[in-house]
């Protein structure tokens, strides 16, 4: 006779998981991995989100798509449903990409909340687990990941449901927070984390430290005017300066930041980690690198086994590199036309060679299909540019320092120095320095050039580009969540 108290053979009841403190780091690893890959098995198998293809739901891949394809920096020739709508700026609330990213943000928050609920002092002592510094760090990092994803939430979606460890699993409907409420929450949370996270550059590679929290805060303040209508440029400069003073140094060679061994870069502040053997996915940098290769390009030079003939850039973006000495303008032009007559044809538009799966010594990464290249979410150059922009926008800070920081980036690139900083040349500089690193949409919105005021090839679905409705500066909440959570209000215009 078999009794009814069966227990899983594979997997573990939560209570047992939390009785062993050794498991905590693996739960933390899932939280971080949730930024990189779609599930818990290689190649996006056993995915976190149902009804979304494994290759199409990874946090970083979709974040990159939403930040890049909607701008002058990147265009994609593939016809996957909803994908052409990104560059055409004609997405709807059921767009698979915006919906997947929306779900991802809240999935990450829910997983972080569970960890925070189960590792309170009271819970630890009830299980007889000593509250070590390690566990304190894990908790701070879980809060950091949650703050990070909400910083993307406030930026891409505006007002979304806010869930914390005080909400119970599966019972009440999460409450939607206004952009102001999210801003206040993030400001408070990140300021607290500023003290609780390990010091800058003192945590293990791949894990968050104080500098990571400063970067999120600096970006939050830089965009505060967009989010809340209030200028916070002095605060943005203050937090960018903390990062600048934390001991990071620029890599001598700009491209070393985007190679298979870019974990060696001295300017990484926080990166999403990939490994061709251990962290295999079809998303992440695997997508960026394969998809950038097509036409007459030799995939072997990129450390991969083939091109997917997808991503190129527009002529408007190429024109930012009028200084031909600027080594950051990494375009492949042989057989490629600058003009894009056909979005679906790879040879239309210059290809971009910034990301590679080869190491500094020119040797390929571990695996020719899945890349080793990490994705630096924050690097020092960004802190320089935030400081410069915040000061230029009237924030308190040192204007001379601002100019010299920008020029140090230009000097590394081999470009001539700027004599002064203007908002126009700062936007262009951010494009040149940070292109294809998932910053562009946020930047164009902040500079008022996203929906109107600046057009590029195929924006709005026509070759010359055209203005689109202003409500598109935020994405719609996922249509499926409006159904599941009727208390939500959709963003205006959708």
């Amino acid at each position, binding site marked *: 006779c078999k009794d009814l108290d069966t227990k*899983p053979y594979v997997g573990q009841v939560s209570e047992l998981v939390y009785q062993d403190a050794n498991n905590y780091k693996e739960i933390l690893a899932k939280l971080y991995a949730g930024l990189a890959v779609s599930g818990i098995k290689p190649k996006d198998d056993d995915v976190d989100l149902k009804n979304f293809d494994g290759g199409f739901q990874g946090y970083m891949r979709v974040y990159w798509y939403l930040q890049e394809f909607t701008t002058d920096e990147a265009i994609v020739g593939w016809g996957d449903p909803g994908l052409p709508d990104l560059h055409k700026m004609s997405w709807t609330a059921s767009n698979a990409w915006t919906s997947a990213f929306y779900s991802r943000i809240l999935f990450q928050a829910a997983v972080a909340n569970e960890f925070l609920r189960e590792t309170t002092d009271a819970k630890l002592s009830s299980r007889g687990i000593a509250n070590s510094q390690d566990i304190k760090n894990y908790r701070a990092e879980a809060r950091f990941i949650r703050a990070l994803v909400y910083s993307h939430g406030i930026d891409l979606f505006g007002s979304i449901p806010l869930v914390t460890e005080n909400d119970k699993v*599966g019972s009440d409907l999460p409450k939607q927070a206004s952009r102001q409420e999210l801003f206040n929450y993030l400001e408070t949370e990140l300021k607290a984390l500023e003290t609780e996270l390990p010091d800058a550059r003192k945590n293990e590679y791949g894990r968050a430290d104080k500098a990571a929290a400063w970067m999120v805060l600096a970006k939050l303040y830089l965009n505060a005017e967009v989010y809340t209508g209030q200028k916070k440029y002095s605060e943005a400069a203050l937090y960018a300066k903390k990062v600048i003073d934390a001991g990071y140094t620029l890599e001598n060679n700009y491209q070393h930041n985007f190679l298979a061994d870019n974990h060696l870069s001295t300017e990484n502040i926080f990166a999403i980690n990939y490994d061709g053997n251990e962290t295999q996915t079809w998303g992440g940098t695997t997508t960026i690198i394969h998809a950038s290769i097509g036409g007459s390009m030799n995939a072997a030079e990129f450390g991969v086994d083939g091109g997917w003939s997808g991503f190129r850039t527009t002529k408007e973006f190429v024109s930012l590199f009028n200084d031909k000495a600027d080594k950051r303008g990494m375009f492949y032009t042989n057989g490629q036309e600058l003009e894009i007559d056909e979005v679906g*044809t790879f040879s239309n538009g210059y290809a971009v060679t910034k990301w590679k799966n080869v190491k500094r010594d020119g040797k390929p990464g571990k695996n020719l299909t899945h890349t080793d290249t990490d994705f630096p979410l924050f690097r020092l150059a960004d802190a320089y540019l935030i400081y410069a922009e915040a000061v230029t926008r009237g924030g308190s800070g040192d204007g001379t320092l601002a100019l010299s920081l920008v020029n140090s980036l230009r000097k590394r690139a081999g470009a001539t120095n700027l004599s002064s900083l203007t908002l126009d040349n700062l936007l262009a500089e951010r494009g040149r320095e940070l292109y294809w690193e998932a910053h562009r949409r946020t930047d164009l919105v902040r500079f008022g050039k996203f929906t109107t005021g600046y057009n590029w090839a195929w924006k709005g679905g026509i070759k010359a580009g055209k203005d689109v409705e202003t409500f598109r500066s935020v994405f719609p909440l996922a249509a499926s969540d409006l159904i599941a959570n009727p208390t939500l209000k959709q963003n205006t215009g959708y």
Partner: protein
Amino acid sequence: QKTVSGKVTDQNDGSPMLGVSVSVKGTSTGTQTDASGSFQVAAPANATLVFSFIGKATQEIAVGNRSTIDVKLVDDNKILQEVVVVGYGTQKKQDLTGSITSITSTDFVKGNIATPEQLVSGKLAGVQITSNGGAPGSGSRIRIRGGSSLSASNDPLIVIDGIPLDNSNVSGAANPLSFINPNDIESFNILKDASAAAIYGSRAANGVIIITTKKGSKKDKLNVAFSTLFSSASRVNNVDVLTADEFRTAVKTYGTATQQKLLGNANTNWQDQIFRTALSSDNNLSVTGNLKTMPYRVSVGYTKQNGILKTSSMDRTSTSVGLTPTFFKSHLKLDINFKYSSTKSNFADEGAIGSAIGFDPTQNVYAENKFGGYFQWLAQNGDLAGLAPINPLALLNLKSNVGTLNRMIGNIQADYKFHFFPDLRAVWNIGFDRSNTRGDQTESNLLSATSFTNQGSVGYYTQTRNNFTNQFYLNYVKGLNGQSINIMAGAENQGFVRENENGTTYGNSGVVPIYSYFKTDYALLSFFGRLNYALNDKYLATVTVRRDGSSRFAPENRWGTFPSVALAWKLNKEFKNDEIFSDLKLRFGWGLTGQQDLSTGDYPYLNAYTKGQGLKYQFGDRYYDLLRPNAYDPNIKWEQTASTNLGLDFGLKKARISGSIDVYQKKTTDLINEIDVAAGSNFSNKVTTNVGTLENKGLEVVINYTPIMNKNFNWDISGNFTYNERKITALTKVDNPTYVGVLVGGISGGVGNYAQVHSTGYTPNTFFVYKQVYDEAGKPIEGLFADLNGDGKITELDRYRYQSAVPKYFLGFSSQMSYKKASLGFVMRSNIGNYALNNIYSSMATYQNITGAGNFINNVSANVLETNFKTRTDQTILSDYYVQNASFLRMDNLNVGYNLSDLFRAKKIQAQLSFVVQNVFVITKYKGLDPEIADGIDRQIYPRPRTYSVGLNINF
């Protein structure tokens, strides 16, 4: 030669009988009785007359020197005593109170049938059997009375020789039932209403199919039966795509200069390349007899089925042994059954079908290259192009997936009639169902860009299933003063363990192998009882109750009680002189059944974590395993279905018509449903929970008619008609009119797009689409849809609910004629009112599809010539233009037989030659390949072939 006359009367009441067939044995002479029961027939003096009538025992009387012969026909006890298996026991057919359909081997569908459920397809009212396609041994979707669940399993419970099976998928087999050799099956009993099925409680909400296998009997002399069947299957039609010339024109018109350069000069029909005419054979040998006093049946079967898709095949060797010894003057009866089968399947990569539809028809099949000689799309550096479609023939030949499933199922039932108290029986039945699967997959390095990098791969998968059943019940039967009672009470415990493992290694040692392991189990514990009461053989009552516990729910929700009650009234027993009815019975039943087959794992209530396998994340210079919390619902519990059934069985003696009419209603509450969960409130975007209600209402009519019955010519017709209306009556806990519903029906060509919705007030799987606008000529206007909500733009809010994949009516019709030694029969089936989304059109019928991501071009559906659509968008793939009426009438089977026994008369050998055509024709308005699509979304189906078979059966 003389004239013999006489009168035929009914033994029961002496009334004259009309229409009794009177024939002279061994000749074609015969007649029928008139209204006064009289007959007249010319016969030689040494003749024997044969009197036969449906429902009566046939009598043979030697004429001798008589010229008048009066005959009294008695009821055919075989029919009246016909016994039906009802679950933990049997009942006389005439005493049934529930809605049970029984079908035995004589009425099975004939032909090249490799899987059991196809034996009864089209023969049963209220039961829909839809094959999953034409792959060898392919499974079917069985729905009884519409299916009472939404996202939980809608599969009926299947019981073989008293042992309820596990419904989970068996790996390495296309069909979980295909391990049974159809030739070993004696009968199917389908319990449709709750009063019949409730004895199976929590697993019976979608009906129960009881399969009984053939056994030996005491009466059997040694009997050897051999059957052999040889068949040839071929493809019926093509998916319409552009011809090579049309494609060249299209690319020249719509393609870029680069794409035009890719065009070749060939004219290749890729579908012709991947399909073939497939030959199959099926051989069976069985021996029944008595070993001393122990009846036995032993059989072996070997089936070799080749699929019409090249490289696909199934080989099955099956053996079965049945022993039915009795001891202590029949006080103890043992029933021992053991079946073993080994099925080896070559699973062809069915992706080749889609690939063949879309592959450039201007290219040759073969090319001189370093990639195995198949034409392949290459990148500019001469390597295989990434993401490019793969040559369909290469996909079949350079990849293999061979699975071998060995399955053993057996049971021993001991039925003991107490020695000093023979009214009481004790039955103990223990059974097991074990299987192991081993599958091997290889992929050549020449197949694709990825396999080239990996230098090919070798993979394996294994599954072990180990299920047991242990049941015991007591049965007490007593008859007294016109009353009879039959009480049964028992308990049952079942355990199900499943273990899966798979791995892949690569030729390139630098590529990390993949490994994954999974094991799970669940258990059920049940107590049940049944009371049958009959008064004066007129009034019948059945009461059952079952209490079930399932390990799939939390202890506080674990137990459920499932009662039922049924009443029946044999109306014909009220008539004094009943000349009209052989049977007239009114039945009423009500009962509760449950569902716990969640199809989302065995621990839906448990807050647990799952560890990742093979995927790690880097911190510092170390890589860490991942632990992920599972989405769960701590309160999840039984789904419950209350059903009511009102039925009438009837038989008209003289007209030789019998049948039944049933009306039913099933209401399911606490639907187990996978729904979008409010983002942030659980550990996934979807969770399985109890929410919503569903209703099925329907009418079933079965009519069996024998228009002609005499010595030489016999014709049986049977028809069944089912009307079923399936409707979701609630989907949310609180009524919410703005709630759209659960999106379902994922479509190809649009990952993440769903074409159907489960909405309150509608049939499940209702299409949820945009309303296409047409021009004056009736041609759809590209990109133009009706702005249904009138907000001036076309958004997802303009989608509307249009038709459903669920048929409202389905019908079956079969006819069997025999004239002397020849026979002719057919089976037809029809579904009416169901629609399908032609997803091949919607995903492949725009000129944009020609464009690949890189150095390649794709063919498109010929529908593009009608629409001239250029761009595929999120909206066009969901246009109602592509939702087409998929009602159909199909002739499943046409068979001709000839009895060869004369050839062997001296040796007492019976032989039958048969010729069968399957999938004879389909009449439909549907524009795709085949309108019969279970979920209503027409992706790329393995085409159902037309099969011609020749068979020979020999008995001696």
